[in-house]
């Protein structure tokens, strides 16, 4: 038996000590712990690494604080496009989706591509059809809307409109 372990990351945009309040820090830590608990519960019962990472990422996608799933940022056109991927180290099987909108958990759509098709990556309508065929839950636009992401889009567009250049590398983070 090998010692099991799990790690997660939860990107949420620029990390700025000046604006990250203690209250918000607590929420971020709790969001990460929720994801760790989801994956740990599977691993401690002898479950697979694939099931553990999928469960952990679903928890992060369900938390609006993080930039994925429910908390996804907006494109320059004010819509959301989500990407996700999974890879199984035992078999080298992999699945990925790009530019999709609708599935509550894009990571499950990626896993459906891996498990139910002969392909590695699907985009567009066929990716969504694979998710539907897998009976994954879909959500409408209001589920994915977060005011902070919308405000971030408006400030970025306003900055661009005035020709301002922000060289903060964290703005390029997903």
């Amino acid at each position, binding site marked *: 038996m090998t010692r099991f372990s799990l790690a997660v990351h939860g990107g949420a945009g620029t990390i700025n000590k000046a604006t990250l309040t203690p209250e918000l820090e607590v929420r971020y830590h709790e969001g990460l712990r929720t994801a760790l608990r989801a994956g740990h519960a599977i691993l401690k019962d002898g479950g697979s690494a694939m099931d*553990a990472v999928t469960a952990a990422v679903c928890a992060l996608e369900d938390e609006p604080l993080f*930039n994925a799933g429910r908390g996804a940022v907006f*494109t320059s056109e004010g819509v959301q496009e989500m990407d996700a991927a999974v890879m199984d180290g035992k078999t080298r099987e992999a699945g990925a989706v790009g530019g999709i909108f609708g599935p509550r958990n894009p990571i499950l759509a990626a896993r459906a591509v891996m498990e139910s098709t002969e392909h590695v990556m699907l985009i567009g309508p066929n990716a969504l059809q694979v998710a539907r065929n897998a009976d994954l839950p879909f959500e409408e636009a209001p589920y994915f809307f977060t005011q902070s992401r919308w405000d971030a889009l408006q400030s970025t567009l306003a900055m661009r409109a005035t020709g301002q250049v922000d060289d903060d590398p964290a703005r390029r983070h997903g």
Partner: protein
Amino acid sequence: TVGAVACDAQGNLAAATSTGGMTAKAPGRIGDTPIIGAGTYADNKTCAVSGTGHGEVFIRFTAAAEIAARMRHAGESLETAATHVVMEDLGKNDGSGGLIAVDAQGHIVMPFNCEGMYRGMVNENADFETFIYSE
């Protein structure tokens, strides 16, 4: 971007990554997240990796697969390989960001070259740890 890597009790590895991309990104732009070998990778013989950061640079350096390659061909440890890729390959080429990775013995590393990275880890002893900055 969010992600997870795990090593289960059988020594099997897996990686998962999901993202909404960058704020105000060009429609149709795809970063490293769904690109196998760039932002997501797993191979039982080396490691599982999930990245977050400036996606275009992660893609150009095939960041996740490069860590596995350094372990496989140069015999580097996970820590050495991951640190090199994040701090040298990415960090010196405008590739701000970081990653989480685990090897087949369950060792976890979480290097980053920016101000912070929301991250956490847990092992079989249920030692839950979460971090934001360089604690």
